[in-house]
């Protein structure tokens, strides 16, 4: 008798628990291309692969977090660096999928390309259940990235002017080595020290490897970090000029931009000086 009561009670609870799941089926999903991710499936994967760092509650306080000096993402706060959407908005499912697939090569977050597309889509769906923001807000509108114009020396030179005008060097340094006058003081939104990207290292950018990714990084900003959005202050055609110039700062990374820049006398001198000198600069005031 008693057993019966208990099982009825459990059945009741189960029905009650299942109800909101049915209602919020949409919320438990992610949509990445032809894949539809399912949060319930993602949960299994999360508690196998992710929670060691990101924590059982998704707040970035897993057991391993204490050993990491770039802290795991806090999915409850839901502030994400790599987005295609404007600053202050939630990323798209695809943004999360891409970040997980790519990994962050400056941190302990590895690439999860080893998981299937479906697995990763499921994980995206589950990660979104940690923050109440996903229930009340929609993902932001992806920014429009216009087609890349032809690469010219003028474009690189104009990009160099923008680098000065927008004072990118204040953090990234005159030569893009991540050693500008403000670099040593930077902290992220959790008061953790954070370094600006060093272009001379030639390593992949935090949010991707392509020119399009680079365009998105400075237009959307990396939320939760000191890197602001320049969406309101750079015109789209100028943004491409800046992309072209930034590529030439990657003096150890082969790119069409660097090749073209080095084919000019001025560019060749600047690049070779940077390569040979290899001394940190930019700690002083700009000329």
């Amino acid at each position: 008798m008693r057993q019966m009561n208990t099982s009825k009670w459990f059945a009741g609870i189960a029905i009650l628990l299942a109800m909101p799941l049915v209602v919020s089926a949409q919320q438990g999903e992610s949509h990445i291309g032809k894949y539809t991710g399912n949060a319930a499936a993602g949960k299994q994967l999360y508690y196998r692969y992710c929670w060691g760092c990101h924590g059982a509650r998704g707040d970035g306080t897993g057991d391993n977090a204490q050993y990491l000096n770039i802290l795991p993402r806090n999915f409850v706060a839901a502030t994400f660096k790599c987005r295609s959407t404007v600053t202050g908005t939630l990323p798209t499912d695809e943004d999360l999928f891409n970040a997980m697939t790519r990994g962050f090569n400056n941190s302990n977050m590895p690439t999860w390309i080893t998981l299937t597309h479906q697995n990763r889509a499921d994980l995206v769906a589950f990660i979104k259940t940690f923050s109440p923001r996903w229930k009340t807000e929609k993902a932001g509108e992806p920014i429009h990235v216009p087609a890349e114009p032809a690469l010219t020396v003028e474009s690189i030179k104009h990009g160099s002017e923008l680098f000065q005008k927008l004072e990118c060097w204040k953090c990234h340094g005159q030569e893009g080595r991540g050693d500008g006058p403000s670099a040593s003081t930077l902290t992220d939104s959790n008061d953790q020290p954070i370094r600006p990207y060093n272009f001379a290292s030639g390593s992949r950018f935090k949010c991707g490897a392509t020119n399009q990714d680079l365009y998105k990084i400075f237009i959307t900003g990396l939320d939760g970090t000191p890197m602001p959005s320049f969406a309101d202050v750079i015109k789209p055609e100028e943004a491409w000029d800046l992309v072209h110039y930034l590529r030439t700062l990657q003096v150890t990374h082969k790119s069409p931009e660097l090749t073209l820049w080095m084919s000019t006398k001025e560019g060749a001198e600047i690049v070779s000086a940077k390569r040979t000198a290899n001394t940190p600069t930019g700690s002083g005031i700009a000329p």
Partner: protein
Amino acid sequence: MRIKHVYLAGVAILAAATLTSAVPGGGTVSGKITYEGTPAKQKPIDMSKEPSCAKQYTTPPTTETVVTGANNALENVVVYISAGAPDDAAPSQAAVFTQKGCRYIPHVLAFQVNQPLQVVNDDQTSHNIHPLAKVNREWNKSQPPGTPPIVDKYDKPEFIPVKCNVHPWMHGTFAVLKNSHYAISANDGGFALPNLPPGKYTISAYHESYGDQSQEVTITGSETKTINFVFKAKPY
């Protein structure tokens, strides 16, 4: 001189905001904010890395995490009604936050939920405006000199620390409040919340370094009630 004007304009806007939804002839809560103990000594700011700002000062300005006046007065405390008053519709007039001389003017800006916020750069250098919201959306925007004001609003009440990552000494506070009854303590620690309809209110006082405290008050007519807040100062 210019700074004073901007400041006065800010006060005028706040005053206007306070008047919009209040009841004329209602009660008033006024008082004084003081501290006890030793507040942290405010240090001169080294702006040498930003010459365009440094040259605006003959003596370097100090940090503003605790600003005090004579007789232990505590400035920059947000006094507001945290309970007992209905939420007010947002005024259409923008609250203006100005970056001038690599400082925020005012240091503490109070405005209402959904009220337009305007961030202005009066400097000859780029700033990035990074309000570290936790309840609201956290955004971070660059504002080079000569660019138009950044316009935004917040849809939830919150005290939001604001910083500029390029100039690490720049710190300010946005106080996003639910109703129009608020004031920021002046240099003598004084504040007044006028035109309150009869009712029981929880009056709260928020200071960026010393936190939040509250007191209850009941207004019956057009009386003026005095409420004072004392914050415990920390020497570090």
